[in-house]
C-alpha cells in the first residue's frame, strides 16, 4: 500500500506533475417526499411521467413556491459542513433550451446562494489521525433537477420523462483543495457520510441521488493553477477517482507534447474508463442568469435557524472523538462512524451498558465478519444491539469465554435465540471448577509425557499447547485464567 503521506504525483517526461481537483457534488434532497417548488412525489423508479405536477410540466401560468422542508434540509447540511448560512438568499434562472427542461430555465442560485463557505475534514488513513486534511467548501446552493430523455423507446424519436424535473438538489461546491484521486475519494465518502448523518440525502449514487462534476487540472508542484476540464455527472466514488487519474494523465501528456488544455466540458465513459469532449468553451451556453421574478428573496429567521441547528444529530467527527475518548482505538472509531447506520447501531449497543472498547472490538471483528458472511447490512442484522449487549455481558462477567462467545453468536444468528438462553440450554457456561480442570490436566500430562519432559527441559513455548489441549478437553468451557494457574502449578 502506498504511503498516504507521500504526495500523489504524475511522473511525466519533464518531471513530476501535481493534480488539482475540485468537485461539484449534486446531492438530491431525499429527506422530502416532494420537489423543490411543487408538491409532486420524487420516488425512485416510478413509471415515467407519473410524478409530474402542472408546475413541473411548466404549464402556462404556473408558479413555483419553495418547499420549506427542502430549504431546511439544505440549511442543516450547511451547518453540518460548518458553513456560513446566508440569512438572505435568492433564486436565479439559468436559461437554456432542452427537451428535458420544461420551463426553458432551471431555477438555481448563482448570485446569492443559501450556504457560503464551510469545510470537510478527511482522513487519508483511517488509522492515522495525522493524515487528516481539510477540504474547503465554497458554497452550497439549491436548484431544480431536469427531466430525463429516453432514446431507446422509439426508432426515430426521443421520449421525455419529467419525473425528475423539479426535484430538489443541493450543489455542494468544493474548493480546488484535493491533490489526488484518493483525496477526492475520501472527500466524497466523507461528504456522503455527513449527508446521511444529517438525513438530507440518502447518498445513493446508483439511483442518482448523488453525482459529481469533476474539475481537474495539472501543474508542476508549486506553479500556478493550470487550465481545468470539467467532467460531468460522474456517479460513483470509483468513477470519480478514475476520471481524475485519466484526466490528469491525459493533460500531462497533452502539455508535455507542447499542447494546451482546452477549458471544456467532458463526459466520462465508464466502460472504457476514459473521458471525451462534450462541448468546448466556445460552444458554452450563455445561460443569461437573472433573479427569478416569480420568487421573493429567501429570508431565514432566528427561530428557523435555531431549529435547524438543534435538530442536527451528532456528526461523524465528534462521534469519532467521543468514541476515542472512551478508549476505542482510532481505527475502530473510524470504522464505526463511517456509516450512520453502523454508528446508530453501535450507539444503541453502548446505551445498553456494555464496555466500549470490548464492544468496539467485538462489532468490528465478530459482528462485521458474521454479517459479511451472511451478506447482510448492519440494519438487517439478525442480532439487535440489546441482544448483543446480553452476549457481551456474559463475556464480561466471566460466564462464557471469548471462544464460546463466537459459538453463541453463530447460534444467535441462526436461531434468533437470546445469548443467555443459548448458554443455559447448551451448557456452554464457563467453569472454574478446579477439580474438573485438574482431572483433565492430569490426563493430558500423562498422555504427553514426552512433551512434559521437553517443556521442563526449557521448551517454554509448549505451555500454550497444554492450555489448548485442556481447553479442548473442557470443550472450551473452562475459565482460561484458572487453566493457566493450574497448569503452572503442575508444571513449574
Amino acid at each position: 500500500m502506498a504511503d498516504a503521506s507521500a504526495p500523489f504525483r504524475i511522473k511525466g517526461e519533464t518531471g513530476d506533475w501535481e493534480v488539482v481537483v475540485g468537485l461539484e457534488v449534486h446531492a438530491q434532497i431525499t429527506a422530502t417526499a416532494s420537489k423543490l417548488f411543487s408538491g409532486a412525489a420524487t420516488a425512485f423508479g416510478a413509471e415515467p411521467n407519473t410524478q409530474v405536477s402542472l408546475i413541473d410540466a411548466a404549464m402556462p401560468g404556473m408558479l413555483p413556491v419553495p418547499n420549506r422542508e427542502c430549504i431546511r434540509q439544505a440549511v442543516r447540511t450547511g451547518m453540518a459542513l460548518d458553513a456560513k448560512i446566508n440569512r438572505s438568499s435568492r433564486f436565479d434562472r439559468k436559461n437554456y433550451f432542452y427537451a428535458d427542461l420544461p420551463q426553458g430555465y432551471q431555477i438555481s442560485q448563482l448570485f446569492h446562494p443559501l450556504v457560503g463557505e464551510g469545510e470537510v475534514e478527511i482522513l487519508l488513513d483511517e488509522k492515522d489521525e495525522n493524515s487528516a486534511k481539510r477540504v474547503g467548501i465554497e458554497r452550497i446552493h439549491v436548484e431544480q433537477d431536469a427531466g430525463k430523455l429516453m432514446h431507446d423507446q422509439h426508432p426515430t424519436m426521443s421520449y421525455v420523462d419529467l419525473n425528475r424535473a423539479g426535484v430538489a438538489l443541493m450543489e455542494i461546491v468544493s474548493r480546488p483543495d484535493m491533490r489526488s484521486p484518493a483525496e477526492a475519494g475520501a472527500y466524497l465518502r466523507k461528504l456522503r457520510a455527513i449527508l446521511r448523518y444529517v438525513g438530507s440525502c440518502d447518498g445513493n449514487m446508483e439511483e442518482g441521488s448523488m453525482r459529481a462534476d469533476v474539475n481537474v487540472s495539472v501543474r508542476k508542484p508549486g506553479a500556478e493553477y493550470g487550465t481545468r476540464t470539467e467532467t460531468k455527472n460522474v456517479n460513483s466514488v470509483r468513477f470519480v477517482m478514475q476520471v481524475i487519474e485519466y484526466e490528469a494523465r491525459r493533460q500531462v501528456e497533452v502539455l508535455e507534447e507542447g499542447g494546451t488544455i482546452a477549458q471544456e466540458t467532458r463526459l466520462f465513459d465508464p466502460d472504457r474508463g476514459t473521458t471525451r469532449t462534450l462541448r468546448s468553451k466556445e460552444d458554452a451556453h450563455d445561460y443569461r442568469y437573472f433573479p427569478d421574478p416569480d420568487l421573493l428573496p429567501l429570508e431565514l429567521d432566528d427561530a428557523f435557524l435555531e431549529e435547524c441547528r438543534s435538530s442536527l444529530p451528532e456528526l461523524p467527527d465528534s462521534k469519532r472523538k467521543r468514541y476515542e475518548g472512551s478508549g476505542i482505538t482510532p481505527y475502530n472509531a473510524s470504522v464505526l462512524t463511517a456509516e450512520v447506520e453502523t454508528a446508530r447501531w453501535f450507539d444503541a449497543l453502548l446505551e445498553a451498558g456494555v464496555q466500549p472498547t470490548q464492544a468496539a472490538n467485538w462489532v468490528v471483528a465478530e459482528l462485521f465478519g458474521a454479517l459479511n458472511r451472511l451478506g447482510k447490512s448492519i440494519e438487517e442484522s439478525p442480532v439487535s444491539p440489546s441482544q448483543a449487549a446480553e452476549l457481551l455481558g456474559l463475556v464480561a462477567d466471566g460466564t462464557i469465554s471469548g471462544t464460546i462467545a463466537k459459538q453463541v453468536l453463530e447460534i444467535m444468528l441462526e436461531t434468533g435465540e437470546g445469548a443467555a438462553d443459548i448458554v443455559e440450554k447448551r451448557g456452554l457456561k464457563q467453569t472454574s471448577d478446579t477439580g474438573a480442570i485438574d482431572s483433565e490436566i492430569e490426563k493430558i500430562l500423562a498422555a504427553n509425557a514426552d512433551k512434559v519432559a521437553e517443556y521442563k527441559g526449557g521448551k517454554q513455548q509448549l505451555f500454550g499447547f497444554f492450555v489448548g489441549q485442556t481447553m479442548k478437553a473442557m470443550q472450551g468451557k473452562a475459565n482460561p485464567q484458572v487453566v493457566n494457574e493450574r497448569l503452572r502449578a503442575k508444571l513449574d
Partner: protein
Amino acid sequence: MSDLTSLSIAELREGFRSGEFTAREIAEQYNAAVAGARTLNAYTVETPEDALAAASAADEARTSSELGSLAGIPLGIKDLFATRGVDTTAGSRILKDFKPPYESTVSANLRKAGAGMLGKLNMDEFAMGSSNETSAYGPVISPWKAADGSNAALTPGGSSGGSAAAVAAGIAPGVTGTDTGGSIRQPAAFTGICGIKPTYGRCSRWGIVSFASSLDQAGPMARTVRDCAILLEAMAGFDPKDSTSLDLPVPNWAAGLSSDLKGKRVGVPKEYRIDGVPADINALWDQGIEWLKDTGATPVEISLPHTKYALPTYYIIAPAEASSNLARYDGVRYGLREEGVKTLDDMYAATRAAGFGAEVKRRIMIGTYVLSAGFYDAYFTKAQKVRSLIKRDFEQAFETCDLILTPTAPSAAFALGDKSSDPIAMYLNDVFAVPASLAGLPAMSVPGGLDSDGLPLGLQIIGRELDEQGVLNAGLAIEERAGFTAKPKRWW
C-alpha cells in the same frame, strides 16, 4: 323587459337581489349582446352556457344568506387567465386550442363569488402591445368613432383591448384585465371606462399566463368606480400558490367608498407635463385638479425626477423577464408544434417562428440581448437600479402628498394601423402608466371627458402601496364631478 346591459354591476346586483329581474335574464341579454357584437372582435371565445349555468345557480340561491357578492353577474375574462376546459391562448398562435385543466386563482375567486363567464376576451399577444393589434385573432375594434368624419376603425388600446371594448360596448358589465405597464389603464382611458391595477401582489398571478412576473397584476375594468371596487374585492386575496402574493386581508373597498377628500393632498408631478401631449389632455388634467380641490383636497406640486427613465427601464426589465417566461412555449408539451423538421433545435425554431408574432419576437430578442453575458450589467442591472430609484421617487413624493393625479395616456385612441410600424411611438402610449407599474403601486384610470374629436380621455390616480381605497375614493370623486355619461354610438 328593460335593457339590463345598460346597468352597472351594483345596479344589476340590487335588481337581481330584490327580484326585479332574474340572473338568467341578465345572462340571456348579455349573451345576445355578445353575439350581436362580433364585428368588434372583442371575444375570442363565447361561453353563453357558462353564463347561463352560473345565472341558474344564482337564481336558485337568490334568497339564501350565502349569496356571493357577484351572484347573477356575468363577466368577460381576458384570454390571459387560465379557464378550465376553455381555450386560453394569451392571444397567441403558439397556444392555439390550448385548454388548461386548471382555473386561474383570480377567475376562480370570481366564480366563487357567483359570477358566470360570457367568454374570453381578445388581447395583444402575451399582453405585449398597446393597441390590440398584436393579437393572433386580429385587432379588437373600438366601439368609439372619432367625430372627424373619417369613420376610421380605432384601437381600444391594449393589451386589455377586448376587455375595454366589451365594457364600453355594453357586452360585459365588468371584465378582468391585466396590467404590466398600463394594460388596464390605457385601454380604460381609450374607451371611457374605469380600470384599476391594484398594488403588486394583491391579486394572485397563479394561472395567469406570465408576461413579466415582477410587473404583472390583474385588475378589474368596469363602467363605474364602485363596480371596480366590487370586482377587485372578489378578485384579490392571498394565494399560497403565488410566492409574490401579499398575505393580507382584503379590505371592504366598496363599503369604504367615499368621495370626501377633505385634508387629502393631491400630488401633481411636474415631470408628467411633457412635450407633444395634446392640449385637451393637459386641460383635462387641470380640470381634474379643480375637481379634487372641490372635494376638499389640496393640490401640491411634486417631483418624480426619474420619470423620464421609466419607459426605457420598463423596456429592459419586462422583455428580460418575458424572454425567459416565454421559453416554455417550445412545442414539446402543449400548444403549437411545427412538424417535419429533423432536430430538436429545428423544431424549437420552426415552432417559435410560426407561433409568435412580430412584437413578441421583438421583445424576446430585446430580453435575450439585455440578459446576455457582457450586456447584463449595462442593461439589466442598471435597469434594476433605476427601478429602485423610481420607487424611491414615489416614496419621497408620498411624504408630501396622499395621491397623485396624472393623465392616463398621452393621447386619445388612435386609428388601427397608425402606430403599428413604429414600436417606439407605440411604447410611448404607456409613458404615464409605466412608473406606477415599476413601483408596484395601485393606480386607476377614470374617464374625465371627451377630446375635441369626441373621444374619451382618462385621468390616472396613483396611490400609496396598499392604498387602493384612497385611489378608488379619488376615482369616485372625479367620477361624480366629471359626470361622464358619454357612450359610443352603436354602429356594429
